[in-house]
């Protein structure tokens, strides 16, 4: 079968020690059996490694930081589209999703660019700060949590929490605080980087398991692969992991996607306690950086997402390989100064 040529723009080219999902998503798309994909990279910084991975990324454009707002993003995308004729954009950062979600209708209407992302309500509802209400609404266990806006609230937390407790940022970062002093330190550390509020969460012990999944926006789970981290970096990222068999976890994922009518890729972070209870810690509203494991297990989620984005019917995956592992590695690319100069000065390479 002749594959259809399409242009897909992808963010998250920061394939570093705390990697973005861009490069794994691109690798998945390059293995599509349906599409012959040309990749347009969208980067924020000139040192994102994906910019220089020419075997995977055909052309890269710098885009404005999410804080610049959606108007400047739209303007930049209009220019990029005028050159590249983009069919689909896959945003891969939590922090940029708000802009892409709110621009998705405009992108479709004015430029015929398809973005298959959660709705704004789905995106806002699952925020860490709303997790308790989210758990109740969708009948899923979540650790007890509270949002605080000031470090002055920390001493009074003892009426609701016992130490250790988890101190989390609204987008990224989480630390376990064993006493009030540590809670103060982590509050300051996280709020300085990611702003307020800070989320205080009950510390639930058990085995952390993760699921990468794709919802079609109608309540159907197109694919889901659960993984357990085997080696974790000092930044808490999986350096290796293995696909596991867990019917309860799959049932929980399907129930959540059905209940929320989730649209797009997602990662669930879950704690399985010794008693066999499953607590949802977080929903990341995009594919995780380990999404290529799903491809290795027989479920090409990014490819299925592109098909959904283009309005094609996609049959749910029925199985995946259990016991498949991923192991990351680091690799030094040699890059000419000219290339660095080009992306730094012209904003494209």
């Amino acid at each position, binding site marked *: 079968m002749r594959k259809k040529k399409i242009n897909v723009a992808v963010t998250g080219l920061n394939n570093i020690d705390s990697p973005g999902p861009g490069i794994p998503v691109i690798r998945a798309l390059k293995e599509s059996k349906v599409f012959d994909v040309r990749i347009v990279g969208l980067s924020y910084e000139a040192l994102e490694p994906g910019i220089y991975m020419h075997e995977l990324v055909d052309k890269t454009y710098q885009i404005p930081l999410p804080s610049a707002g959606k108007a400047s993003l739209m303007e930049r995308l209009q220019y990029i589209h005028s050159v590249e004729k983009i069919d689909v954009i896959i945003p891969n950062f939590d922090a940029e999703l708000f802009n892409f979600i709110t621009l998705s209708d405009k992108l479709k209407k004015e430029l015929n660019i398809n973005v298959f992302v959660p709705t704004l309500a789905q995106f806002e509802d699952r925020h860490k700060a709303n997790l308790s209400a989210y758990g109740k609404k969708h009948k899923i266990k979540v650790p007890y949590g509270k949002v605080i806006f000031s470090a002055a609230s920390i001493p009074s937390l003892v009426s609701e929490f016992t130490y250790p407790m988890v101190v989390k940022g609204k987008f990224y970062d989480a630390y376990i605080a064993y006493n009030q002093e540590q809670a103060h330190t982590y509050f300051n550390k996280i709020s300085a980087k990611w702003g307020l509020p800070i989320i205080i969460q009950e510390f639930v012990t058990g*085995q952390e398991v993760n699921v990468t999944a794709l919802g079609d926006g109608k309540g159907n789970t197109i694919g889901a692969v659960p993984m*357990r981290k085997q080696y974790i970096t000092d930044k808490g990222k999986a350096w290796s992991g293995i*696909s*596991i*068999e867990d019917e309860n976890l799959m049932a929980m994922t399907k129930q959540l996607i059905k209940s929320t009518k989730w649209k797009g890729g997602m990662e669930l972070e879950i704690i399985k306690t010794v008693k*066999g209870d499953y607590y949802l810690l977080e929903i990341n509203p995009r594919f995780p950086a380990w999404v290529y494991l799903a491809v290795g297990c027989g479920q090409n989620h990014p490819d299925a997402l592109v098909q959904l984005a283009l309005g094609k019917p996609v049959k749910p995956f029925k199985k995946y390989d259990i*016991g498949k592992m991923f192991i990351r590695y680091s690799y030094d690319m040699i890059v000419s100064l000219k290339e660095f100069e080009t992306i730094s000065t012209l904003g494209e390479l």
Partner: protein
Amino acid sequence: MKIKKNIALSESGFVFDPSTGDSFTTNPIGLEIITMLKEGKSRGEIKSAITKKYNVDGATFEKDSYDFINMLDKHNLTESYEKEKN
């Protein structure tokens, strides 16, 4: 005492628990014991098979197998762990 049904065993002594992703290695005698447990053999049957095949007396086997099976239990590889959990 039974080994969880979904545990995968390979001839090399590699033991894989697909529900947790944990993997272990065992020596050939450990592999024989796990295989027999998986087949549903009783501890008496296993003791008889091992003491017949190897130069080990019953008391020593009892002691060592007790330790070994405890270890399997500790690593959540047995059905007794599953029952306890539920």
